C-alpha cells in the first residue's frame, strides 16, 4: 500500500511538485540569491572596469552558477530522498575521492593557502569539500536512522559507525587544510548525533574532543602558520596589520560605515575602492553592510532567520527519522556557515575562509547550497 502511494507521489506533475514546496523557504532563498547577485556585481564592477576587464565577468558567472544550482536543486527534489540511502555509499565515495584528488599535486590547486580546489579547463574549479558535506550528512543520517524503532535511540555501535563516516572526509579536509569546512562538518555531526536521540554523553564528549583537538592542533603546529595568524589577528587586529588584520579591520569599517540606510547600491566607496580583499566571495556581506546599511543587512539576516524557521518546521513535522536527520544536518551546516561568515566580517568570529550561503560568489558552494535546499524541499514534499 505504502509502496503504491509512493509511486503515486513520484508520478506527480511538475506543476504539482512546484506547488508542493514550502513557499516561504523558497522565498527566503530566492531573495538571498537575488540580493547576492546584486552584491557580487557591486563588489566587482568598478574594480574590473578600472583594470580594463569586463565589469560583468563575475556577475555573469554567478548567474550561471545559480542556474546550474537551481537545476541541481530541482533534480534533488524529484528524487525521493529515501531512495538516496541506496546511493549514499556512492555519494560519500565520490566525495572522499574528490578530497583525495585535491591533495595530489597537479590536480589540486592552492588558493589562499588551502589545497581545496580541482581545476578544470576553461577556468572552472570544483571544491570537493562542498560535496563531501552533503555526503557526510546523508551518510550519518542513514546509519543513525537505520533499523530501529521510532522511539529507540541509536546504539553506540551506530554512533561509532557514523563517526567514521564523518571523520574520514574531515581528516582529508584538515589536510588541505580547510579549517572552516571542517568546523562546519563538525557542527553538522554534533547536531545530527544530538537529534538522533543518541545518549547525551556522545554530544558532550564530542564537544570536548572538538575543543581539545583545536587546542592541540594549534599547540602542535598542525594548523598552519597563516591560520594561527588569523586567529591572533582576531584577538588582536594589530598583530598582523598588513594581512588578515588588515582584512578584518577593513571589513568592520566597511560594514560600520554603511550606517542605517547605507551608501546606496553601487555607491559604496569602500567597495568601489576595493579596500576589502575577496569581497565577492567570503566578504560579500561587507558589500551589503556598506551599500544597503543596517536596513538591508538586517533584512538579509531576517531572510536567513526565515529560512531556519521554515527548515526547522520541516524537520519537526516529518515523521521519518532519516529525513529529520538530513534536515538537521543541513540546518546545522547553513547555520554555522552563515554565522561564521557574517560573524567574521563583523569581528565576532575568527577568520576562516568560508563563503556566505546563497550569496557568495563560487560555483561549488552555490551548487552544494542549492542541493541542500533541494534536500529540505524533498523532505517537505514527502512528509505531507
Amino acid at each position, binding site marked *: 500500500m505504502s509502496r503504491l502511494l509512493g509511486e503515486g507521489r513520484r508520478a506527480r506533475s511538475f506543476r504539482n511538485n512546484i506547488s508542493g514546496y514550502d513557499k516561504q523557504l523558497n522565498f527566503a532563498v530566492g531573495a538571498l540569491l537575488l540580493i547576492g547577485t546584486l552584491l557580487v556585481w557591486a563588489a566587482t564592477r568598478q574594480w574590473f572596469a578600472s583594470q580594463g576587464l569586463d565589469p560583468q565577468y563575475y556577475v555573469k558567472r554567478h548567474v550561471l552558477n545559480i542556474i546550474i544550482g537551481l537545476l541541481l536543486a530541482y533534480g534533488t527534489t524529484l528524487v525521493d530522498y529515501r531512495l538516496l540511502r541506496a546511493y549514499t555509499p556512492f555519494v560519500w565515495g565520490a566525495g572522499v575521492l574528490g578530497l583525495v584528488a585535491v591533495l595530489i599535486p597537479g590536480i589540486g590547486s592552492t588558493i589562499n593557502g588551502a589545497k581545496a580546489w580541482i581545476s578544470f579547463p576553461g577556468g572552472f574549479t570544483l571544491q570537493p569539500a562542498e560535496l563531501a558535506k552533503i555526503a557526510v550528512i546523508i551518510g550519518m543520517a542513514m546509519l543513525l536512522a537505520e533499523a530501529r524503532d521510532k522511539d529507540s535511540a541509536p546504539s553506540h555501535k551506530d554512533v561509532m559507525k557514523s563517526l567514521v563516516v564523518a571523520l574520514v572526509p574531515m581528516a582529508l579536509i584538515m589536510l588541505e587544510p580547510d579549517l572552516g569546512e571542517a568546523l562546519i562538518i563538525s557542527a553538522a555531526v554534533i547536531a545530527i548525533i544530538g*537529534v538522533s*536521540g543518541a545518549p547525551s554523553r556522545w554530544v558532550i564528549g564530542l564537544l570536548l574532543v572538538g575543543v581539545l583537538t583545536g587546542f592541540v592542533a594549534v599547540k602542535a603546529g598542525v594548523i598552519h602558520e597563516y591560520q594561527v595568524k588569523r586567529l591572533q589577528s582576531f584577538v588582536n587586529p594589530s598583530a598582523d596589520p598588513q594581512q588578515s588584520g588588515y582584512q578584518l579591520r577593513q571589513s568592520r569599517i566597511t560594514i560600520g560605515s554603511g550606517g542605517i540606510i547605507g551608501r546606496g547600491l553601487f555607491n559604496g566607496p569602500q567597495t568601489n575602492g576595493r579596500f576589502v580583499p575577496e569581497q565577492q566571495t567570503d566578504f560579500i556581506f561587507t558589500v551589503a553592510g556598506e551599500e544597503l546599511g543596517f536596513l538591508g543587512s538586517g533584512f538579509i539576516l531576517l531572510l536567513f532567520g526565515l529560512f531556519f524557521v521554515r527548515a526547522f518546521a520541516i524537520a519537526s513535522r516529518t515523521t521519518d527519522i532519516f529525513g529529520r536527520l538530513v534536515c538537521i544536518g543541513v540546518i546545522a551546516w547553513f547555520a554555522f556557515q552563515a554565522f561564521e561568515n557574517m560573524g567574521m566580517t563583523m569581528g565576532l568570529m575568527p577568520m576562516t575562509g568560508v563563503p556566505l550561503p546563497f550569496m557568495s560568489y563560487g560555483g561549488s558552494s552555490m551548487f552544494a547550497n542549492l542541493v541542500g535546499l533541494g534536500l529540505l524541499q524533498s523532505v517537505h514534499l514527502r512528509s505531507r
Partner: protein
Amino acid sequence: MNQRSRLSLIVTQTLVLSLMLALFGRLFFLQVASGLKYQSAALSIQSRDIVNPAIRGAITDSSGIPLAMDRPGMQITVNRSAVDELPDKGSAVFAQLGKLLGMSAAQVFTKTRLCGELAIGQRSGCWNGTRQQPIPLTKLATEAQALKVLENPTIFPGVDAAPVPIRSYPALAGENAAHVLGYTGVVTDADLADTTKHFYRNEIVGKSGLEYVYDNYLRGTPGVKTLIVDRKEAITSVSQNTSPTPGNNLVTHLDARLQSATEAALASSVKRSRSLGYHADSGAAVVMDVKNGAILAMASYPTYDPNMWQKGLTTQQAKDLFSTATGVPALSRAIQGEYAPASTFKALSIVAASSAKYNLNALYDCPASLKVGTQLFRNFETKSQGHINMTEAIAVSCDTIWYQIAFDQWLKDGGLSPHPSLNDYFFNAARGFGVGKKTGIDLPGELSGRLPDRQWKQAYYDANKNFFCNYTKRAKPSDLTPYLIAIAHENCLDGNKLRAGDAVNFAIGQGDTLVTPLQLTDIYASIANGGTLWKPQVAKAVITPKGEVIKTFSPVINGKAPVTKSDIAFLHTALRAVATRGTAAGVFANYPIEVAGKTGTGQVLGRNPNGSAKDDTSWFASFAPAASPRYAVVMMVSQGGFGASVSAVGVKDIYSALFGVVGNKVDPAKAIFPSSGPSAALPKVDPKYAKLAAGTVTK
C-alpha cells in the same frame, strides 16, 4: 521521536536562532551605534586631501605698514607617486637634489617620507601630509635652483618648482616686535586632534602672539582638493575642489616707527645700564594710549628674529630661545615678566592714604630710618628729608613716611591679631588698580603678577610650611646663613600672619608684590585718564584684502580705579614734580614735553648664576603731556640699577620719538602722531601687499 531527540531539536533550534540574534545585535552595534565612527574611519581610508595654502593676511600697523605679511617664495617639491615608480626608488634623484640644495641625500630621503613610514625616533623632518601631495623640500629656493629643476626633467623626474607664499616680517621701519607679532608654523597633531579647530594637515597656523590670537582671521581658507583613492592608492575620483580664500588683514594700534624707536630706546637703556656696571639681563617697554587702552608699542629685550622660523629653526637656535645663558629671548617681558614695582607703587599708596583720610597736603616726617617692631627700616638713600608734604614725598621718593603710615594702619587693623572687619587700605587700593589680576591683553601667555594680601599669605604658608619648618634639612647649603635660618624659623611659627614688615614693605612696592610692565602701564594710564582701567588691546580692526571692514575692536573698560578727583589732581601734580624737582628732574631738565612719572628702584633677593647679588630693577612709569595726558609710557630694565638714570632716560627717548623732540624743541613734522593723537581712522593696506593678497604670487 523520543524525548531526548525532541529536546535536542529544541536546543538546536534555540541555538541557531540565538546565533542569528547575536549577528543582529552586532550589526546594530556596528552600523547604528558606532556608524559615525566607522564612517569617519572609512573616509580617512578613502580620501586624500591636497591642501593648497591660502595667502595669510597681513598684520599692519595703524597706518597700514605691514609688520607681518606673506611674500613669494620658491618651493621645490618631490612627487612621491612619480619617484617611487623609478627603478631605484629615486635614490639618484635624491642625490642630485641634495647637491643642488646643499643637503645630504639622506636628508632629502627623510624629508620625502611620510612620518608613518619611518621608525619612531627617526621621524625628525618627516612629511606629515599625504603621499599624493607634492612634498616640499624647501620654500626658499633661488630662482637658479628652480630653473635647474624645471629645465632638467630627466635629471629631476618627479621634482617640481613653484612659487608659494612664505611668512615674512619685513621690518620696514626697522621694528622687530617679535613678541607681539608671534610666529607661524605647521599645524601639529595636537592641533589637528582639537575638534573645535578646523585645521588641515600641513596648514600654516599662528603659534604665538597676534599670529596665534587672530589666527582665525588671518589664516584664510586653504583650497582643498579631495581625491578618492582605491586600495592601490590610484586616484578614482575627485570629490571636492575648492580654491583658496586669502586671509583677512589685521590692523593693529601699533605704529611701526614708534615700535622701532621703543625697541631702540629699550636696547640703549640696557646698554647704558651695563656700561654703569649692572647686569641688565632683560627689559621691557610699553606705550599705551590712555584714552582707549590701545597698545602703540610694546618691546621686550632680549629679542629674536621672527623670520627665523621660516628658514627652519636649527637646534641651536631653538635652544637659545629658551636658554638662560642667552636671557630667554622667547619670553615677552612686558606681559610675562613679573617684578616688584618698588617706588612706582607709591602712586597707589597715595590713593590708600587718601582713603584712610590722611591729609595729602599736611606735613609728614621723613626720617632716615624707622624702627618697626624690632627691625630698622631705612630710607632709600638713608637720608632724612625732614618735614615734607606728600607731593615732596613722592618727588623725592621718601620711604619712611610710608613705613609710618602703613605701620599705623596695620596696628589699627589689629596688628598680629587682625580685627574681623579690616580696612586694609593699601591692599584694597592695589586691588582696585588691578594688581594681581591679568589685564586681559589680546596676547597669549600674560601673567597676573601678585597681590601679597592676607589670603595670599595664608595660601603661601599652607604650601610652604613644611619647608620653613625643616629649613636646615631642606635648604641648599649656600642658603644656610644665620639670617635666613632665623627668617625660616619665624615663617615656620606664624608665616601665615601679615606682619608689620610685610605691611610696610607693601606700601613701597617691595616685599612679595609683583607686577608686569604692562600692568604698571595700565595703572599709570588710569591715573592719567582719571581712573579708567582699560583692557589693553593691540588689535584695532580686521579688514578684508579688498579693504572692507569686518570687525573693529572697540575699547573695553576693565574697571574704575578707586580714586577721587582730588586724588587724581594730587597725583598729577606730584608725579609731575618728580620730573621737575624730584628723582627724575635731572633726566627731564629743559625737556619740552611735560612728563609726569615715577622712578622705581626695586630690590631683588637672590643671586645670579655666577653668584653675584642681583641688581635692582630699574623702573620709570609715566604719562604725558602732564596737563592733558594722552600717552602712558613705562620702561623696566631687570637688574638695571637706578630708575632715573636707566629707565627714565629710556622713556625720554621714547617720548622724543613720539612727539618729534629734536634737541630741546618739538618738531611737529617729526612727531609720530598728529597733536590730536593717534587717528581712529583705518588705513588703506599697502597696494603692494593687496596685489600679493589677490593671488598674484610672481617672482
